[in-house]
């Protein structure tokens, strides 16, 4: 990765909070004070266990939910307070989402061409029916499907094919930023690589920026430039994927790393799962702190030197 000229921040999330039922007994702090940014053209991986708030983060960014608090800057504009149909429509074209479940993300009563063209219809991107068909065919080809698939229904496709239809639907409005919410975790392993390769190819061709959500750190490392590790609604570590993968410092990251199996029998025989125990509430104020260039850890002020030393140790090994 060359970081000669720092690209601009396409997305900048600051202190995002997303609470469900705020102020009530059943309040859920799904996302609690999360800050991160994504550079244009890169892939930012978001990992964490089930229920830690990854999807909620993505959905707040794309404004499926109304954020409780915080700012979300997209291309310099705060979109967390975006109002008015016109502003919203432009934003709806710029950010798109690819969903987790290929069986639930396509309307079973619509033909593939109408699914893909939904965005084209809403934003009036086609001049004529012929233009619409042409665009649909181009999109089908782009994601590696056949033109003849346009008139079929979703139930006639395999999981991988459906996921590609979902990708085509997202691409139809020519977005700049795509949130991939575990787009491969419901797929067969042999198909996962196909879809990931397609996503990477599209990123190159269309200069897309991805927020890639997953719970599998090794897959995220493969596809991402930078990684954020999430735990219970909070980001606990952010860094380049090499850095996090090799020198993950936060105990929770270490626990995730220790869970990754390697095709090495010697290693596997001695692999020890590190279980993560959340530290006791000690009243210290914690937040994301930069302990090395581009490497952030969720910690208190007085823990910074400790993590810095830990990083040095790990790098020396």
């Amino acid at each position: 990765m060359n970081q000669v000229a720092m690209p601009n921040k396409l997305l900048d999330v600051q202190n995002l909070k997303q609470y469900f039922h705020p102020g009530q007994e059943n309040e859920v702090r799904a996302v609690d004070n999360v800050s991160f940014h994504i550079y244009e053209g890169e892939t930012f991986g978001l990992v964490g266990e089930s229920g830690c708030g990854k999807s909620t983060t993505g959905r707040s960014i794309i404004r499926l939910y109304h954020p409780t608090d915080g700012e979300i800057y997209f291309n310099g504009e705060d979109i967390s307070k975006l109002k008015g149909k016109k502003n919203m429509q432009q934003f709806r074209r710029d950010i798109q989402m690819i969903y987790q479940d290929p069986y639930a993300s396509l309307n079973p009563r619509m033909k593939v061409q109408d699914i893909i063209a939904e965005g084209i219809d809403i934003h009036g991107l086609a001049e004529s029916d012929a233009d619409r068909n042409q665009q649909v065919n181009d999109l089908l080809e782009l994601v590696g499907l056949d033109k003849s698939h346009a008139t079929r229904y979703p139930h006639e496709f395999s999981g991988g094919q459906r996921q590609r239809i979902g990708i085509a639907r997202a691409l139809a409005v020519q977005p700049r930023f795509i949130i991939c919410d575990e787009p491969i975790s419901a797929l067969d392993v042999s198909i996962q690589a196909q879809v990931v390769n397609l996503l990477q190819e599209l990123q190159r061709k269309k200069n897309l920026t991805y927020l890639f959500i997953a719970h599998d750190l090794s897959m995220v490392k493969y596809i991402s430039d930078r990684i954020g590790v999430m735990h219970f609604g909070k980001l606990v570590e952010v860094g380049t994927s090499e850095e996090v993968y090799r020198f993950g410092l936060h105990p929770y990251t270490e626990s995730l790393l220790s869970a990754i199996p390697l095709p090495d029998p010697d290693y596997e025989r001695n692999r020890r799962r590190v279980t993560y125990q959340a530290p006791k509430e000690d009243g210290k104020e914690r937040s994301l702190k930069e302990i090395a260039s581009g490497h952030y850890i969720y910690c208190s002020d007085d823990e910074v030197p400790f993590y810095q030393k830990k990083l040095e140790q790990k790098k020396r090994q």
Partner: protein
Amino acid sequence: MEQTQLNVKQFSADSFEPLIHAERESREKIVAPSLTFLQDSWRRLKKNKGAVISLFILIAVAVIAFGSIWVSPHDPTKQNVKYINLPPKIPGVSLDGFNGTALIGGQRVDKYAQANVPEQVHFYLGTDGLGRDLLSRLLMGTRVSLIIAIIAALLDLSIGVTYGMISGMKGGKVDNVMQRVLEVLSGIPNLVVMILMLTIFEPGMTSIILAMIVTGWITMARIVRAQALKIKDQEYVMAARTLGESSSKIALKHVLPNISGVIIVQMMFSIPSAIFFEAFLGFIGLGLRPPAASLGTLLNEGYKTFRFLPHLMWAPAITLSVIMVCFNLLADGLRDAFDPKMKD
């Protein structure tokens, strides 16, 4: 063993050629014909004998009942004191009970001859106490039942679906208020609503329809709301939202088509109960007024003389039962056809 090995070695190299890997294109081709949801359901419905037979019976009944507006055997409301209480007489049938004779004091008497009915005049199901042709009145009553069925279906589709859809899609406070209103409405028994209507309106079709407008669509609204709540969290609805689709379009394009099966099935099940509601009202005397006839009023008239003239009650009773059973069987078949998983 040795033999086969030898044979294998005898093959020359050029009789082999590499297997050409199927092109990606052709691997991804789907050959099966594409069936729409309706085609697929129709295919499944056709396999269900009971439902298909019911469908044809209902179509036949509807055609005959509405056709009799123009070609009725006799005038259903014309009274004729000379021809009262005639037994059924069908030309060419000499079976007792259908040949115009009746048993009086242990003896078969030709009632038609007694009443001086001309030779070419037949009352296929006999006449009632006022000399009106029962078959004509039966057709008239069936027509009323079918009209009630259509109205029940329309109310379900218009008020029920709209109410449920708004409640489910809006959610939150709106949903809460709308559901409380439903609970109040459904707490009032149908009969009470009907009696309240009768305090303002004349008994008849109008008051029955008004009573149905108040309560007839509640089950449908509840079912549609529950389904809408379920569908609106699906990922394809979220996808539509992130594409910028408006809520009303989402309801029409995404939610409605996906619950259409449930809606049709519920509609079919609500029809027999509406028919029965009308018949019940007619029977207890709150329904149509004479000379108009419905199956309920015919039953009411027939049952008074059931011991002497049983056919006056048998005819409407059988008709009502057949219509209700057919609607139920058809609804059952449709449910299985629309959603094979729902069967339990």
